[in-house]
């Protein structure tokens, strides 16, 4: 197995008395899409700055693409692409100028610059307005251009901070497909900071959840769900004429039941996974004809709120 693309050990950054990143220990493998979740101010952006050698750490160590961000930042940044939280584009310049300048800043081979810019403008559907000033672009267009700029030099590692925040659903799906293609087909590693839990669940091989500078959980979304979300919702289908009997039978259990439509559909929430057999037994015992029982797998959103709801302390590692 190849060395991790990102490897940190107790990486810490303080601003005065504020500990923005607190003893972060993390591994991200090559070709992985790693989601970095957390509220505003949780330390996500500071982590990206630390990993890309833009901000010096107050303590701990980091290796990114085998390089030390603190002392080999220039070599590292040649191989990373960054989409910052705000697009950070020169709005007085055209899209083409923005890309041409950054192609030179990133050292894209001269003979490739023109073609690469044309490819990206085409891919992000900006070719028609490539020679207009970016100040006149919509938010979504700016975001697409910033993403194109991050990809100019075909980086091995991409840091994407809320890449779909300003995009419409169609454009967002295009970005999702692009991220998956870069990781799955091209072997690039993507470090994705996001608030969008659906996006993280869809794209990420693993996620890390940050809270007040600490990494409080890390693992594959499904694994985290199993670990942290104990109460499931179970969709139960019974014979329509048995609905009332079923409601009576379940009334004695510590669960909440929501009758659905048509009759016979019940949503039973607050069920622990290991209590599902007892739930079914109670129904059968009451003479209810049970047609189907379907536990709903918890989402990353459930994990996120479970973690934040219980005021987490210390990191929880889950191995896939």
């Amino acid at each position: 197995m190849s060395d991790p693309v990102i490897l940190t050990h107790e990486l810490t950054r303080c601003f005065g008395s504020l500990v923005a990143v607190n003893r972060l220990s993390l591994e991200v493998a090559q070709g992985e899409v790693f989601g970095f979740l957390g509220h505003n101010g949780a330390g996500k952006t500071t982590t990206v700055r630390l990993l890309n050698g833009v901000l010096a750490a107050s303590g701990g160590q980091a290796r990114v693409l085998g390089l030390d961000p603190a002392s080999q930042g220039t070599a590292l940044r040649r191989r990373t692409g960054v989409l910052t939280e705000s697009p950070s584009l020169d709005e007085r310049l055209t899209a083409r100028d923005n890309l041409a300048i950054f192609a030179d800043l990133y050292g894209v081979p001269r003979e490739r610059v023109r073609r690469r810019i044309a490819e990206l403008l085409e891919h992000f559907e900006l070719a028609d307005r490539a020679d207009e000033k970016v100040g006149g672009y919509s938010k979504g267009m700016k975001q697409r251009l910033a993403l194109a700029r991050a990809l100019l030099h075909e980086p091995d590692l991409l840091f994407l901070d809320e890449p779909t925040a300003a995009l419409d659903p169609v454009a967002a799906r295009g970005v999702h497909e692009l991220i998956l293609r870069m990781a799955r087909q091209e072997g690039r590693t993507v470090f994705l900071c996001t608030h969008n839990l659906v996006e993280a669940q869809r794209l990420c091989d693993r996620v890390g959840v940050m809270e007040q500078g600490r990494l409080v959980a890390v693992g594959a979304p499904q694994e985290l769900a199993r670990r942290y979300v104990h109460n499931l919702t179970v969709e139960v289908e019974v014979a329509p004429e048995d609905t009332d009997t079923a409601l009576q039978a379940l009334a004695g259990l510590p669960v909440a039941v929501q009758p659905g439509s048509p009759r016979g559909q019940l949503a039973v929430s607050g069920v622990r996974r290991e209590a599902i057999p007892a739930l079914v037994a109670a129904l059968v015992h009451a003479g209810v004809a049970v047609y189907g029982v379907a536990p709903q797998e918890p989402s990353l959103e459930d994990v996120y709120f479970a973690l934040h709801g219980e005021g987490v302390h210390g990191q929880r590692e889950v191995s896939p």
Partner: protein
Amino acid sequence: MNWRGVRALVRKDLKVVMQNKGVSIPLIVVPVIVFVVVPALVALLPRLFGAMGAPTQDIEELLTMAAPPLREALSHYSPEQAGVVFMLAYVMAPLFLIVPLMVANVIAADSFVGERERKTLEALLHTPLTDGELIVGKMLSAWLPAVAVSWLGFVVYGVTANLAAWPVMGRVFFPTPMWIVLALWVAPAAAGLGLVAMILVSARAKTFQEAYQLGGVVVLPVILLVIGQISGVVYLSVGVALALGLGLWVVDGVLLRLGARNFHRNELIARL
């Protein structure tokens, strides 16, 4: 040094600056006033005075205030000629320095502070440019145009002054050796001063306007030089110009060391 990256940074800053009317208009208007309008008016004044019947004693009175070595240098001119030479070759000399100072100052304000204000700095800090290349690129963005405008202005000023003063002088009298020193040695140093002053200001100023106003303080020494020369306290000879240039380069070096201390990614990103 990654010169391709540095050139890209200079190109970016200059393109952005020229799109900002608040910056580009003063960059055009001030040099036109200093290099064309003022010398033309000054050279034509003796003729205007003559047409109005004003005596040349006014000019002679003005010259009595000049420093003795300067009076000596002007003694072999007629009073009218001496007035023109005094104004165009001496009084205007410090004013000429306003141009490199101001051009460098304004562009640096837009480049150093404007970049932060427009929220475009972070993307730049994430590029492979080293801190050294970033500061060199930013400095060249301001210094090169300031020197170019000064040298172009020097040529335009020479042509305007000689043409407008021809009826009085009857010969090409400009540039004087002191002006050549001023243009080639002092003006680049003055551009450097406008620039490094802005690097220092950029650590505190939050907006381009604030930086521009704070940085404008650097023209005060030039105003003092103008007053000093008119009142006879200072006389810009070749030697004084050489010394002035040397002094400015030293000040530039010292201020640059101070300013560059804060110009690190780590510091810059923490201030975003």
